[in-house]
């Protein structure tokens, strides 16, 4: 006993860790191999037999995971862009240009006490953030990121989207009602009134587009807009875009329609009593919603993942790694070394102050950049889904920027003005849009 304990004490901390880890790894590896050998075929067969389900589960997982960095990025954008518009600097301490501050915020929210005040309805109170967050994630599932990169493509995608995105109001209402706080109640009711009212112009504004596209399949709508940017639906539905933009802003509770959490009026609205990660869910859902409405705006009206112009020099890259034979091995083995040396040499020669190892580091970084650029360029040209994602993200974050920009500029409207605007202006305008579109279609078909 004493021998063992003395020996254990003599180990350093990494030593102790390794002492435990190595046997564990050995056992795990052996076990894994055994499982694969014994059960591998049946598992593979099951998976292959249910491929759509596997694909769906994977897609859901990826979308769920994707929301977190998206929210972090948009939160950072919001902090930084509004700060710059305010002539401030904004976050600049954590990470390059403060870009990790939102991550730190996320961690902070995770570590905070998850407080349940007296008098709340605990079940509803706990589930409200989940409902809100899941509504966002589920809406994201039908957004096509690129050609073929879509969580779940189906024919009624657009309808599904509107159905699900309206679901978040249930969560907000739950939060407002269960919090046992008048501010929360007001916030919840406001959001109910607002989202329900704006749902109508939002949906109606797309009906014209559905008439034009002849389908509610989002993927088809995007494919219809391929070619030059003049083929985008924005040029056929300018009024529809405007209405969709305004109504989507209200739908996502963004300034100037952020009445549900108007901090100068009702403290934090439905989220007043929330803290910790429950609040974090609301917070994340809000920013995911911003992403979703931007993405949908891009998808429906701005060509989705289509580039604004067809690539003028169609390239057929046929790269068959197998044909290179030994050359492939040489390329993989020697390419980085040669490139590193190649990029390092000029720096080493240029200045005697730069030592050899510094030059090598610079060369290594530059070589990596070069390879990444090369591979990226190849992927952009050769793989159309990469190009699609790039264009999609570019456009989407452009709209995210617009939403943040609006938040930095505009004051908030009042609840009665909000309702007036929805029912007296947006709804007639969207009906007008629908009428004009339908009439134009009839006329065009008649002429044909």
């Amino acid at each position: 006993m004493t021998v063992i304990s003395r020996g254990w004490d003599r180990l350093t901390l990494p030593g102790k860790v390794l002492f435990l880890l190595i046997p564990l790894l050995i056992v795990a590896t052996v076990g894994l191999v055994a499982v694969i050998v014994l059960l591998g075929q049946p598992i593979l067969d099951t998976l292959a037999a249910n491929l759509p389900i596997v694909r769906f589960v994977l897609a859901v997982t990826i979308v769920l995971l994707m929301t977190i960095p998206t929210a972090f990025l948009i939160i950072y954008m919001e902090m930084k862009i509004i700060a710059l518009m305010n002539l401030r600097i904004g976050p600049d301490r954590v990470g390059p240009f403060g870009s990790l501050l939102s991550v730190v915020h996320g961690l902070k929210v995770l570590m905070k006490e998850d407080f349940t005040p007296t008098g709340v309805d605990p079940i509803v109170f706990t589930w409200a953030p989940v409902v809100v967050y899941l509504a966002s994630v589920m809406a994201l599932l039908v957004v096509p990121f690129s050609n073929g990169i879509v969580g779940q493509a189906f024919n009624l995608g657009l309808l599904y989207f509107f159905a699900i995105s309206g679901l978040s109001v249930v969560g907000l209402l739950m939060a407002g009602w269960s919090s046992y706080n008048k501010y929360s109640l007001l916030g919840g009711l406001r959001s109910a009134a607002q989202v329900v009212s704006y749902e109508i112009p939002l949906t109606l504004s797309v009906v014209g587009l559905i008439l034009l596209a002849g389908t509610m399949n989002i993927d088809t709508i995007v494919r219809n807009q391929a070619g030059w940017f003049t083929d985008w639906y924005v040029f056929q539905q300018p009024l529809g875009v405007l209405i969709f933009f305004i109504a989507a802003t209200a739908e996502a509770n963004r300034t100037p329609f952020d009445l549900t959490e108007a901090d100068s009026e009702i403290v934090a609205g439905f989220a007043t009593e929330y803290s910790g990660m429950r609040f974090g869910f609301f917070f994340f859902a809000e920013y995911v919603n911003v992403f979703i409405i931007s993405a949908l705006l891009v998808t429906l009206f701005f060509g989705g993942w289509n580039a604004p112009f067809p690539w003028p020099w169609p390239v057929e890259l046929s790269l068959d790694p197998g044909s290179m034979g030994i050359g492939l091995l040489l390329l993989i083995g020697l390419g980085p070394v040669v490139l590193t040396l190649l990029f390092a040499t000029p720096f080493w020669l240029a200045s005697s102050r730069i030592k050899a190892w510094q030059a090598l580091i610079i060369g290594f970084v530059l070589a990596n950049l070069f390879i990444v650029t090369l591979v990226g360029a190849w992927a952009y040209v050769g793989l159309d889904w990469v190009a699609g994602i790039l264009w999609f993200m570019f456009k989407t974050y452009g709209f995210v920027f617009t939403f943040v920009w609006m938040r930095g500029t505009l004051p908030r409207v009042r609840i009665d003005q909000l309702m007036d605007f929805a029912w007296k202006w947006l709804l007639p305008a969207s009906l007008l849009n629908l009428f004009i579109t339908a009439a134009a279609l009839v006329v065009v078909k008649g002429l044909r």
Partner: protein
Amino acid sequence: MSLIPGLGLAKGMALTLRRFFEPKVTIMYPEERIDVPPKFRGRLQLLYDEWGTLKCETCFQCAQACPIECIDMGGIDTRGRYHVHWGAAETYGERREESALRRSGRPVPDPAFRPFQPVDLGELDRILEDHDHDPADMLQILEETQAAYGYLPVAALKRISHETGAWYAMIYGTASYYAHLRFEPAASTEQAQEVADHRPLEATYLAALDAALGGSDRPGTPARA
């Protein structure tokens, strides 16, 4: 409002976008600091003289004069405890007076090694009774206390403060202002001896001075043995 709806909003958006690219005004605080104005009066600090001795006499006058009473006197006492001047009695007992006296730089009995002699306050109570516990008669009370005890014991000062309701700082300020009031026994031969022990005899350094100056026959220099 303009005739075209949304023009005002667009103007505002254009302005914020322009500001987005303009230089920023933030002062990066810990790295970059603006100087306080020369007339800045918010810096509270104690000054030291050129020998590194604290110039504060612990007279409590600043604490007393501060109109909004934001100045508190405090310090480390001989047992290493920190005290503020004004607070509940139970928390720091009698130490603040000792601390204050010690920090004044005057020769005071060191309570760490030699506790205060217990003082019979009966005499003081009679004096206070005579003056009807009236802080307006503070000087007379102090003088009579000194006459009774030979000096002003700290315990007596505290008692006076307690009984008259006068602020301790006020009493201390009064007492320290008048030269004839003292906080230690005047006839403390022990102390005098201590001081004398540490000082070279006059004759010694006078003789050395004379030697340095070259004789004692200079006019105006009294010759001493």
